[in-house]
């Protein structure tokens, strides 16, 4: 398969039991369904439940050239106790950083159960030779990364070299071993929902534990229709093979309201089983404070100034 030049129509991925047919996506209907789910009205205890779940599923992220050990240490502290004023607020699922900052995060998060994820494989572009990408993954793991967020090679994908994309996922998964692998599709660069679906199935066939929408560097990122499209692919894989693949929405989710809409998509597409940090993640940085603000409002009845919530 690795040598196959392209994925012809009706191509079946080499899995046993086999993956569902690739199929196609009707963009209008997909967007309509996503929009109608976004109109769900979530109130009171259902809202508090969703907000706390969103925190428990958050991959608190900083991916800047200017990241320093100090910044990452502060972020890690926030990951453990997002709202110092309210100990009932849960910790996040993971902290996501560049490989060089993994040791700092590991040190601060020791014993908390919060995972440290590293982006790798030439993040965010993925435009590097395959051996370098694999080496990137290995060194991130050596530095202590417990989860790897890889990017697919969109250049290869868009030029029809699906086999190369598949091959790199397979090699990355090999390098990961037991380390949790999330595959970033960078849907904002894929152009069509058909491509998003293809890339999702390709990543899953290659061994992804999670499929993830975006790097956060490109707009649009985790839009609701893109999330729905990927969730439906995950559902098809589960139906056909029994494999449970996780999903991570990353990029562009900044408000608590959007986070709830994403959770509704998961709830009504894959069901309550997927509403756990083991199978669902929200990659975000500024989202957390908005959730905290909304939670405080639900609990006290009034909004508080942003000054009451720490930056990181």
């Amino acid at each position, binding site marked *: 398969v690795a040598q196959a030049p392209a994925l012809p129509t009706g191509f079946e991925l080499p899995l046993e039991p086999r993956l*569902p047919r690739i*199929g*196609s*996506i*009707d963009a*209008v*209907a*997909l967007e*309509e*369904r996503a929009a109608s789910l976004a*109109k*769900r*009205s*979530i*109130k*009171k*205890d*259902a*809202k508090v*439940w*969703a907000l*706390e*779940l969103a925190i*428990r599923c958050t991959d608190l992220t900083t991916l800047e050239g200017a990241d320093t050990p100090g910044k990452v240490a502060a972020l890690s502290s926030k990951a453990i106790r997002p709202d110092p004023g309210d100990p*009932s607020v*849960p*910790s996040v699922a993971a902290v996501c950083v560049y490989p060089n900052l993994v040791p700092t995060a590991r040190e601060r998060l020791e014993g908390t*159960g919060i995972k440290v994820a590293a982006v790798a494989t030439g993040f965010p572009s993925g435009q590097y030779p395959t051996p370098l990408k694999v080496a990137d993954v290995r060194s991130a793991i050596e530095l202590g990364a417990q989860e790897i967020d890889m990017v697919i090679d969109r250049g290869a994908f868009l030029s029809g070299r699906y086999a190369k994309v598949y091959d790199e996922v397979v090699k990355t998964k090999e390098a990961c071993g037991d380390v949790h692998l999330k595959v970033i599709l960078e849907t904002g660069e894929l152009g069509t929902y058909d491509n998003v679906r293809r890339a999702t199935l390709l990543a899953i066939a290659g061994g992804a534990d999670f499929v993830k929408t975006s790097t956060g560097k490109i707009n649009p990122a985790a839009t609701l229709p893109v999330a729905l499209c990927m969730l*439906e692919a995950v559902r098809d894989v589960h*139906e056909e093979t029994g494999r449970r693949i996780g999903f991570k929405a990353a990029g562009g989710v900044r408000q608590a309201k959007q986070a709830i809409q994403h*959770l509704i998509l998961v*709830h*009504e597409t894959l069901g*309550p089983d997927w*509403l*756990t940090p083991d199978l669902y993640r929200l990659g975000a940085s500024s989202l957390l404070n908005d959730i905290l603000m909304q939670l405080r409002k639900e609990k006290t009845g009034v909004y508080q100034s942003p000054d009451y919530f720490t930056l990181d």
Partner: protein
Amino acid sequence: MADLDHTQDRAPVPKDWLYAPAPESTDIVRLQERYGFFIGGEWAEPSQTYVTISPSTEEPLAEVGEGTPEDVDRAVAAARAAFENGWSSLPGAERAKYMFRIARILQERAREFAVLESMNGGKPIKESRDVDVPLAAAHFFYYAGWADKLEYAFPNRRPRPVGVAGQIIPWNFPLLMLAWKVAPALACGNTVVLKPAETTPLTALLFCDVLRQAELPPGVVNIVTGDGRTGAALVEHPGVDKIAFTGSTEVGKEIQRRLAGTGKKLTLELGGKAANIVFDDCALDQAVEGIVNGIYFNQGHVCCAGSRLFVQESIYEPIVDKLKQRLETLRVGDPLDKNTDVGAINSKMQLDRIRELVEAGKEEGAQIYQPSCELPEKGYWFVPTVFTNVAQSYRIAQEEIFGPVLSVLTFRTPDEAVEKANNTPYGLSAGVWTEKGSRILWMAQRLRAGVVWANTFNRFDPTSPFGGYKESGFGREGGLHGLEPYLRFDDSEAWGG
């Protein structure tokens, strides 16, 4: 919330996410205890009344008039007077001004109308809010635009109004059907006597308030509530020039019999048993959404509902599996809750009819599937239902159920799909699901249905004509075609039309 799961090392996690009730407030609706008839711009006292209820709670909402032949006579006289005394000779642009006003007021009062529609009819608030009311306003906007352009719509045919239009509308889209009927009639310079459905008169009565607000001249629109007898009096009234009816095929046939030889113009929009045809190259998940929307939209109380699902045999299993899964997430309950997908059945009578046909389906040997969902104790409810193993000869594949009940059949080739789809006395609508453009056109040419939707279903727009073939009726509503039934032309004069 549900039971707690303590297996995780962090905070305890409830297992399921139960959406808290999110009901739309009814405070915005001020109902009178008793309504009369709206005749000549005034409220007329009824001699007899009946009580209209909310089908989701069975609670009474208001007392409304039961129109007698005398009431109908007064309404027709008022309509005639308004027609003669100015409305028919008003320049089109002036008529349009009133209609634009009506449209804008409907938009301004949209929430009020949406809430009342859901209270009286049982449909989910998200549908009355996002579909019924905005579309009703859109119809007035659209036909207001035609009012001064009739000469251009029908060049060299000298279009003139027909006179007094008697309009009888159904209970499934009370306000929207009112707009479908009233808007083209007014645009063409006719006056109207409208009879709302017996079970859902309230939005039509609230609409009278809009007419007054818009300062529409008295008598141009008159509304007489009542049951079938009121409708019959309207049909038979000699002062009515045109009848427009939307409802059951049975009543439609009766109206046509009674009008034979009277010279009254007639349009009928009757029942349907639409085929929703799913090919193996469709986008599966989106097709499933379309199937759900096709049959469970408005509890299946839709004349063009996609009640016969034809699935190509090669994808029968995934489609049926996905459909069943999707049904589990349908939220049935309080129509006023913003998260409700399927509301209450409109009336006890309709519920009995649905039950009867579903029983017949079981007896005939079809396999029934219903999702697990709890129904409220009071009110009229029916669980969204799918029948598989359905044969073309079963009653559930032949008769219009007008409820949330889907019959699944299969086909092997496009020819077979067309043949089976057309094998019905009805011909209102059809749906085709395929990613292949050429096949959509091939199918649309061969399906005997007034509307063929491609990769969508139950989509309405004022610019698009809607109407049936065969026993689904004749005449079109919407679009340029929708003007014709409300106009006389030079060329039709010779034929006594």
